[in-house]
């Protein structure tokens, strides 16, 4: 009985002390972590929407999405963070698209765990720059081993076809959701 009580008391004290200590550290760190996350998102938005000067979250959709405005306050498009499966794990990216959802402005890969030197080429030019001013209607398409012939096509990277296709699939998936939801919620 005495040992059980001792065990209970010791573990309780350790648990409470840990909890208290962590609460203190967390109350200091949380605002900083939130600020870091916001800064990273902001940077990504301005990377995919080069004319953007301001942005506001779209509130009619259930996921994260931003409406961006140029210097004179006109809505120039959307920035949509979206994620999907890559070759080895999740790829998280920011998709920039014009206000009528017809043309991509740019894409930026935020997080990925693709094969270094092969799959990671999807985060770099020239693959990345193919998405600038790319027609996204009816959807983005890919071709393998040949230069793109149509306006909505990108060429996959040799040796990283799966990663390339994954990027295209994520873009299409994100845009499909956005189109549907904006049509339903009534595009502002």
């Amino acid at each position: 009985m005495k040992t059980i009580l001792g065990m209970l008391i010791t573990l309780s004290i350790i648990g409470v002390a840990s909890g208290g200590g962590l609460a203190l550290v967390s109350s200091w760190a949380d605002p900083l972590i939130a600020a870091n996350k916001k800064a990273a998102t902001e940077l990504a938005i301005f990377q995919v929407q080069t004319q953007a000067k301001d942005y506001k979250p779209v509130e009619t959709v259930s996921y994260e999405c931003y409406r961006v405005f140029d210097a004179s306050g006109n809505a120039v498009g959307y920035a949509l963070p979206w994620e999907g499966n890559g070759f080895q794990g999740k790829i998280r990216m920011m998709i920039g698209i014009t206000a009528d959802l017809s043309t991509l402005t740019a894409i930026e890969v935020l997080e990925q765990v693709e094969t270094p030197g092969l799959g990671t080429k999807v985060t770099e030019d020239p693959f990345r720059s193919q998405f600038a001013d790319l027609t996204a209607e009816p959807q983005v398409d890919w071709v393998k081993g040949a230069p793109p012939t149509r306006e909505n096509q990108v060429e996959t990277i040799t040796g990283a076809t799966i990663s390339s296709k994954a990027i295209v699939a994520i873009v299409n998936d994100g845009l499909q959701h956005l189109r549907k939801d904006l049509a339903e919620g009534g595009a502002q």
Partner: protein
Amino acid sequence: MKKQVTLFTEFTKGLWDQNPVFKQVLGMCPTLAVTVSAMNGIAMALATTFVLTFSSLIISLIRKLIPTQVRIASYIVIIATFVTIVDLVMRAQFPELSKELGPYIPLIVVNCLILGRQEAFASKNTPIRAVLDALGMGAGFLIALASLGAIREILGSRTLLGVQILPDAFEPWLVMILPAGAFLTLGLMMGFLNFMVLRKKTREEQELLSRHLQEPKMSLAKGQEA
């Protein structure tokens, strides 16, 4: 009574004699996973050292109060607390580094190097010795991870700490920054270091042996002369 070594030895034994990576082969998961660059290795080792030092200090202080039946649970709670602190501080102050190291920071909780030192050392020794032991083990871990990271970074991406040191003409060995590169580098390093140790040992033995063998021979030779 256990033989007490000097406080200085308590620290230095972790550097080489009981080096956590090369000699005890502990903490392999972070060793292999995060050493794609020297900076990652150093950051990982420093985070581990912080957790190890503070856990050792606290556990050594309260070692007589913890009932034996719940000691492992107590250790884990204390270790997890410090790991969470490290994780929060890194996410707040070094977001880039924290993103690079990803899940490996929270995984320090289950690094067997840390729990191993608590069970084998901190729970049986005074706080001063426990802290020195932890700092020594941490320094040994740092040496191992930094050198492993440096080798992999130089050969795999031509840079050291982000600065390019090999010319563009050198084609980076991609395998070095892939998981296989970690195993190859660690295995070769460990083999090389142990080979050196073994060679030194045999040489010393031979020297000792020849000295003892020569003496009677010399006296024999002298005797013949006389």
